[in-house]
């Protein structure tokens, strides 16, 4: 009997000691407590609200609460955020904030969480949140959020409403003008582009001199709009070189661009009625490295003494290196790029430069296809609408009409 009582007493003592050590290990900062703070914290009970703010493929819950009274802030160490995915218990610590904080966003892309077991927030799960007020003495006061939340992925980003409307209007304009062009044929006025007109003369000059034409598609990838526009100009140039039996050299920086360029030149030679004059050696891959490519193309220019150099596509730092070498070699040069920073270099060194959108307009300008002309016309009208919107935005900003200002600014940002 005595033995049993001693055993039980030993067990109880062991449990008490273990519990005490665990408590001490968890909260070593407990020294003393200013009990006058407690009622003040409880009085300023922060009411937490939860909102689903998921967007851009990221599931996110925003927890907001009223700010703590300024007079108790000196006693507060941190605000702690707890989340539970199952029920009202098993809350896990997910964030530690400064005492002055009033919101926390629990997002699926947040990597560092204090308790790794919490894991990222997921869609269609039920979540409960608690706000913990940690005092400097190490005491935690927990306050539950008003309600649970089930974050849902969004199907439409409402913040992109302005670009969506702009896209819709532009789409309608393009389709509308394509229909108009279908009815009226190619009888649509398109502003003259000097650089485009000059391409034919430059090819003629190369033919007279008996020297080749160099066509550079730039450093862009095949999906770049500038590269796509460049294929159309290449087709036109290739057709002319096929007719005049002038040599064409197309060194490429990208294997896929090379493949498409080969197909474009082959078709152009076929359409010109000289498929036999085409050779895969005209369009070839050099290298994907920027300055190695420049060295190769510059070497080609100087060795082959090209009469005409065409640069159409995406260009970066190599623009001046290429065009200045061509200038030194005495070639006629025509260029076009959508890289605004490179335009001054081309303007300085080339005989003709297509500025910005003129490069995109080239396909319609050269092809004279009514459908393409219609799209070009729609582009001009969209530009007019944009100009009106810019004036509207200026007026709205001046007289501070918030709704119009936000809409127009969003639209301009998109464009």
């Amino acid at each position, binding site marked *: 009997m005595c033995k049993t009582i001693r055993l039980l007493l030993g067990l109880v003592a062991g449990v008490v000691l273990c519990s005490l050590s665990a408590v001490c290990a968890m909260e070593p900062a407990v020294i003393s407590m200013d009990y006058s703070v407690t009622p003040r914290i409880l009085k300023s009970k922060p009411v937490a609200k939860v909102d689903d703010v998921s967007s851009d493929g990221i599931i996110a819950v925003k927890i907001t609460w009223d700010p703590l009274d300024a007079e108790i802030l000196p006693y507060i160490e941190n605000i702690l955020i707890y989340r539970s995915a199952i029920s009202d218990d098993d809350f896990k610590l997910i964030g530690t904030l400064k005492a002055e904080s009033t919101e926390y966003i629990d997002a699926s892309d947040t990597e560092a969480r204090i308790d790794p077991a919490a894991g990222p927030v997921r869609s269609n799960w039920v979540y409960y949140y608690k706000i913990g007020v940690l005092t400097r003495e190490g005491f935690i006061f927990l306050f539950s959020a008003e309600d649970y939340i089930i974050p849902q992925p*969004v199907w439409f980003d409402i913040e992109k409403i302005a670009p969506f409307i702009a896209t819709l209007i532009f789409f309608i304009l393009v389709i509308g003008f394509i229909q108009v062009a279908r009815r009226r044929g190619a009888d649509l006025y398109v502003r003259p582009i000097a650089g485009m007109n000059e391409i034919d003369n430059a090819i003629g000059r190369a033919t007279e001199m008996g020297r080749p034409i160099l066509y550079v598609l730039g450093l862009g990838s095949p999906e770049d709009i500038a590269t796509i526009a460049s294929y159309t100009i290449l087709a036109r140039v290739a057709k002319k070189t096929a007719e005049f039996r002038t040599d064409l050299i197309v060194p490429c920086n990208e294997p896929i661009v*090379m493949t498409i360029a080969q197909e*474009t030149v082959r078709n152009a030679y076929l359409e010109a009625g000289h498929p036999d004059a085409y050779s895969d050696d005209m369009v070839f891959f050099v290298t994907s490295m920027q300055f*190695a490519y420049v060295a190769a193309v510059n070497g080609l220019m100087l060795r082959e003494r090209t009469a005409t150099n065409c640069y159409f596509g995406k260009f970066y730092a190599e623009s001046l290196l290429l065009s200045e070498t061509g200038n030194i070699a005495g070639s006629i040069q025509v260029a076009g790029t959508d890289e605004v920073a490179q335009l001054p270099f081309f303007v300085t060194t080339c005989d003709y430069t297509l500025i910005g959108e003129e490069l995109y307009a080239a396909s319609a300008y050269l092809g004279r296809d009514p459908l393409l002309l219609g799209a070009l016309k729609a582009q001009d009208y969209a530009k007019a609408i944009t100009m009106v919107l810019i004036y509207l935005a200026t007026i709205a900003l001046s007289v501070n009409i918030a709704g119009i200002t936000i809409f127009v600014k969003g639209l301009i940002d998109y464009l």
Partner: protein
Amino acid sequence: MKRRIPILIVSITGFLLTVQYFCPHPYSEAFYNNALDWLVIIGIFAMPLGIYSMVRIQFQKVARQESGWGFAVISLISLFVMLGLGYTPKCLEAGSFFMKLFEFIYIPIQATMFSLLAFYIASAAYRAFRARNLLASIVLVSAILVMLGRVPIGMAIHPIFPEIADWIMNFPNMAAQRAINIGLGLGAASTAIKIVLGVERSYMGFE
């Protein structure tokens, strides 16, 4: 059929990716990321085509002893040496022969090419800044003011030069750049719509 199927694929993909831009749902994000992965995969598969083209052209140059065929020999040797060394164990570790070739031959050559830009800018600027007419004179004066505003001596002459330079960059220059950018944005959107509608087909090698 050979033309219709690719156009159909491009139209459907283009339409879906347009919708994807406005749809932040995880499915749509996954679709977009998948499309990007496909782009990279296709790009890698195309690389042998490029290498084949390059090797064929260089071999032909050597065989026919065309002008500059010596460069072709160097290109081929460089290609095969780097290719071979790339398969040796620990080739990417610092101090390996592969890395030494890269660091002490390739990088200095690349830096040399890039440094040419400084001299080319000087010669191009000389041509651009000749006061041949009113517009060229405006460019010349603006350029001098911006240069003076950007170098310490400008500030030493008068503190107004940096302010003038900032004004030129932030107002007339920015206005012109934005005008070009708006045109570019509309042009790109128009081209994208033409591609989705199947009107623009130059990316497939035919008009």
